[in-house]
């Protein structure tokens, strides 16, 4: 008897298996896939690397003086926290999930940033875009200090004050 019941259930259900990959997969509107970083919007501030639970996003200093925001899909858990915290809205969560590849390098996306160095000591202060954008709102007297690292800036300002009040540095 139970066989007949099962057959009637099966007849109603018909074939449910999709002919993936020849048919598109079921992906709902809520799905979170890999992320994309827009290099035009990214400032290289690195907030996303701090929130990323599996450390899939990292900020690396290269020897050639560039700063690289590196996204490794192999570690990504597709939580989308980076997109939530990005102050520039540079990160978008896509619906892409077919990421299989034969080489690990295919799973890496890098965003390169030039850096600004301190005009006096040569130390890296930060990513060039971030510095440029941030200094747009800085005018007047402060503008001449923007390419200095915090230590050199302190020295320069202190020297300026001392010269003004007539004390020899």
């Amino acid at each position, binding site marked *: 008897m*139970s066989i007949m019941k099962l057959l009637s259930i099966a007849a109603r259900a018909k074939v449910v298996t999709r002919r993936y990959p020849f048919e598109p997969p079921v992906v709902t509107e809520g799905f979170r896939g890999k992320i994309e970083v827009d290099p035009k919007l990214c400032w290289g501030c690195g907030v996303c690397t701090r929130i990323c*639970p599996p450390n899939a996003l990292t900020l690396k200093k290269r020897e050639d003086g560039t700063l690289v925001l590196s996204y490794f899909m192999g570690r990504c858990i*597709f939580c989308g926290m980076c997109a939530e915290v990005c102050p520039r809205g540079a990160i978008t969560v896509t619906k892409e999930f077919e990421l299989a590849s034969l080489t690990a390098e295919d799973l890496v996306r890098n965003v390169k940033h030039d850096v600004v160095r301190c005009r006096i000591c040569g130390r890296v202060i930060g990513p060039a875009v971030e510095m440029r954008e941030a200094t747009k709102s800085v005018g007047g007297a402060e503008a001449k200090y923007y390419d200095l690292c915090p230590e050199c800036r302190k020295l320069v300002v202190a020297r300026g004050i001392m010269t003004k009040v007539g004390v020899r540095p």
Partner: protein
Amino acid sequence: MGEQSKYLPECPEMGEVVRKLTEEYGGHVIFSRESEVYVEVPRHELRDVAKYLYSSGAFLKTCAAVDERPLNRSFALYHIFGMDSKGYDVIVKVSAPEDDAWVPSIVDVVPAADWCELEARDMVGIELKGRRLVRRLVLPEDWPEDIHPLRKEVPHDFRPPSVKAESEFRPPERGIPIGPYHPVLHEPEYFELLVEGETVVDVYYRGFHVHRGIEKLGESPRFTYQKIPFLAERICGICGFVHSTCAIMAMEKAAGLRPPERAEFIRTIVLELERIHSHLLWVGVAAHVLGYDAGFMHTWRVREPVMILSELITGSRKTYGLNLVGGVRRDIDKNKMEKIMKTLDRVEKEFKELANLLVSVPQIRRRAQGTGVLTRSEARALSVVGPVARASGLYRDVRKDYPYLAYEEASFKVPLYTEGDNLARVLVRVEEVFESISIIRQLLDKLPGGPIMHEKCSAIIPVDELIPPGKYAVAAIEAPRGEDVHFLMTGEGRPYRWRVRAPTYQNIPALRPMLRGDPLADAPLTIASIDPCFSCTDRALVIDVRTGRARTIKLWDGGVGTCRL
């Protein structure tokens, strides 16, 4: 800890227990909250205290060993007793000075303490006095003797040098080995069934092959409170949301903040969705184990819409990533509500038909009825949890005993069977699917408005400042497999100690009474009937199950690493 007696008068029975512990056993209250009280007792009184609590109806949830040497030069063991019928936890702390690190074993008084005591010995190196069987539970055989991973001086990324195995595996003389890698087990675990003829006479178990050190990782500088929910979610591939919610509930308790009502409702709805898909998965696997693959495939077909729905609501089929301290990340809007209702109607209709069919198949009925019996008293002694307890006539359900999130807003019944056999465990789970569907409907109907995130929290604000160091919290959730417990001791910016006790951890020891005396052919179904989740269980430690019998057989020379069920 000035709040120590603030809540005591609200719960008179709790006051009575505390009075008894402090006046008769020389204990003192170190911390308390509405439904938890932490009492430190001198270690020579621990056995009497355990006896008193156990005889007054407490279940042992688990125990957690903590290396407190950086704080007070001693080790500590926290036994978490749950007063199910009263709805509060009594956490009994015993300390052992670092140069004299032992605590009395309570295994002969409280059999359920077996595994967690061995885990404490393995991971923190606390010796257990008065225990007959002392073995490694969690650590592998070749792990160095003097290294206890949860001690603070051991780095979280420590790897011992590889050693050559001193002993070789010897096939048992009359045992049937199953695992660690075996077609009927979906995760690595080792069972050895000792048989006489066709009848199973004893069972040995060795687990923790997939121990990943998640608790240690949670304490490491690699993690913060903000990231731990995502780590906790990966403890289990089926009930991940339970773990992330439970870890977050513990953190929120420690921070003293309550998420907005709407967030609590959404968490509850997703928890129940998870129960539906987990039970459907299990019913399918049970059919598969019985050789009824048509039943397996149709159950999983019915389950699929629930997975798609989970993805729609949370963003992922599993490991939802929905939870943050203080609330949830995604709201449920009108459109999603309609889709949930539609899916539930469909699943309810199809599963009703299928479940009726499954339990009426004579072959299934005959193999499930009367096999793998766990009596009520055995279930009580081992403090088993979830559907396994409820199929043995033990009325235990965290949702009713310690109401959390929005469960008080929904009316539902807890299925209870007294047979204790495999069929009862099937029926409990089948009925729970329909109860869960009804809970979600009721909650969607009542879903309150308002924000989904606490005003003090968001993805961008680090929550570390909200959770002060030196706080304790115990959170429990009714996972599909039973009660899941998270014990948290807060530290600077991250947990000082985070202890996870998954439901299967409590249920595996029950396999021994279930399997003994049954035909060998029924063993796969009985093992599957507790819905074992080895990854959950293995997240950290070692176990030993007490037996009244003197006979011991070692699987390996030296005997370390073998556990008797």
